[in-house]
């Protein structure tokens, strides 16, 4: 089976005024297949979000992206904004942690979904409206036809995020890139959204990249995982393999620092020297 997305030697650096560029992503490889979910797992500063932004062409100067990301036979890296616009939406959909704030506050949510369907899918007004109500229902908005004309502020955060997911999947992307889409939400809402994404994936066989810092969420949603630390991939494999028998010290440390992995707080510190060192190195030395 050929991969939906094939990333080779992806590097992202940010130029600085003071000379040496900051290397945020230092040459990583991975691929995503249809119907599978790859979790990119890491802590702050690991490069996980920069990776997902680079794939979507959202890194602006002074950021520089190098390497290859082959999607649909073409390299996404270095393409013009105009070119990428055709890939985004129907090729690659995206949902971010703060997507819920990106809805236009002065248009009803239904109109925003209809606009995407008309412009991108060429649907007629009445068909677009029907499809928009269907999508809102699919993402779990009860009584969608009457909520169609509601404005974003009339929805809760979780509901707004559901609408953003409806927008992202409206164009039936082959690949969905979700960057911490549930991080700001309550656990009961999060569970609903993760269930929803899994169901949509089952129906359309889309591939998914799920960027998260949350081990437990990665465990729930992903089939494969990539663990990032300081811009490199330290471990990869199927989610079951990696969680059952982590090979890299950083992954072991990360797992043993999760409160769900131990039975007493006294065990929390076990085996994450790599991480302890990191906080020391990053900060106290600069004092």
């Amino acid at each position, binding site marked *: 089976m050929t991969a939906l997305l094939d990333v080779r030697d992806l590097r992202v650096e940010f130029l600085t005024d003071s000379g040496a560029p900051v290397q945020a992503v230092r040459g990583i490889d991975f691929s995503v297949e249809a119907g599978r979910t790859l979790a990119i797992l890491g802590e702050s500063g690991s490069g996980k979000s920069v990776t997902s932004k680079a794939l979507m062409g959202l890194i602006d100067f002074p950021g520089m992206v190098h390497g290859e990301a082959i999607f649909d036979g073409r390299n996404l890296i270095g393409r013009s904004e105009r070119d990428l616009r055709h890939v985004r939406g129907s090729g690659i959909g995206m949902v971010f942690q703060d997507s819920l704030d990106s809805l236009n506050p002065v248009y009803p949510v239904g109109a925003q979904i209809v606009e995407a369907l008309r412009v991108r899918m060429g649907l007629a007004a009445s068909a677009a409206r029907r499809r928009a109500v269907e999508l809102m229902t699919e993402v779990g908005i009860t009584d969608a036809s009457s909520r169609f004309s509601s404005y974003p502020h009339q929805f809760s955060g979780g509901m707004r995020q559901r609408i953003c997911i409806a927008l992202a999947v409206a164009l039936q992307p082959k690949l969905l890139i979700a960057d911490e889409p549930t991080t700001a939400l309550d656990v009961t809402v999060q569970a609903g959204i993760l269930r929803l994404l899994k169901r949509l994936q089952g129906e359309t066989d889309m591939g998914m990249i799920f960027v998260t810092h949350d081990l437990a969420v990665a465990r729930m949603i992903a089939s494969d995982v990539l663990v990032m630390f300081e811009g490199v991939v330290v471990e990869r494999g199927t989610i079951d393999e990696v969680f059952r028998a982590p090979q890299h010290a950083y992954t072991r440390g990360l797992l043993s620092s*999760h409160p769900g992995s131990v039975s007493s*707080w006294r065990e929390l510190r076990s085996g994450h020297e790599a991480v302890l060192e990191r906080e020391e190195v990053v900060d106290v030395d600069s004092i």
Partner: protein
Amino acid sequence: MSTASDRDPVLEVVGLRKVFSGRGGARDTVAVAGVDFAVGAGECLAVVGESGSGKSTLARTVLRLIDPTSGSIRFRGTDLTTLTASQLRRQRRHMQMIFQDPYASLHPRQTVYRIVSEPWRVHRDLMPDDPRRRVEELLDQVGMPARAIDTHPAQLSGGQRQRVSIARALSLQPDLLVLDEPVSALDVSIQAQVITLLMELREQLGLAYVFISHDLALVRLVADRVAVMYRGEFVEQGPVAEIFDHPTADYTRSLLAASPAIAEGEFEGGARR
């Protein structure tokens, strides 16, 4: 259900209510709808709930950062709700709060020395003979190097900032800490270090904790007892193992089912546990 610990409680809250009155014809919001609980010395009571459950309002009301609408808050037998401002200030040294966001709760223009010694400027009788030396001791107690004393918060990581917040809280030798999501802004590995520090301090100093959190896995590790808050009420409270293993309230069950678990097993959408 036992709501009080066996020993004399440090804090005993009875029938606490906080209603925010609606403006311009809006309805009143009942943020805390009559809760009872007690916390003993060295004990950790966790209050869990989702956004809007009233848990942060509860935390603030317990310290009278917000005045309650009704109910009593007894701290070592003294009802805080009846105190005047100056009486309250004298009591406050015994109870301190740690906030969620260490980027917002430390003054960005003050040095660590100034931040940690600030409480002594309010409680002048507690000013040590050598405040600088005492701040160094406090920093050491929270695992910070002495040379951090002249830095500003911007030079510190989130975990280090939260350690400074803890040092500041300890400067008045309190009996009770109210911790409002103290580690939820931190990376998981840093979170583990700060939790370990808080638990060690509790043992060494016999502190009582009211630990506000949405993270059930964390609460299971740190709390002796847990209260589950939903729409301003405690739907149940009791020993942590009892509540987690045999929840009686429907809401607790759905919260447990929705909580992501790191353990084996495919996500069933809430069927597990």
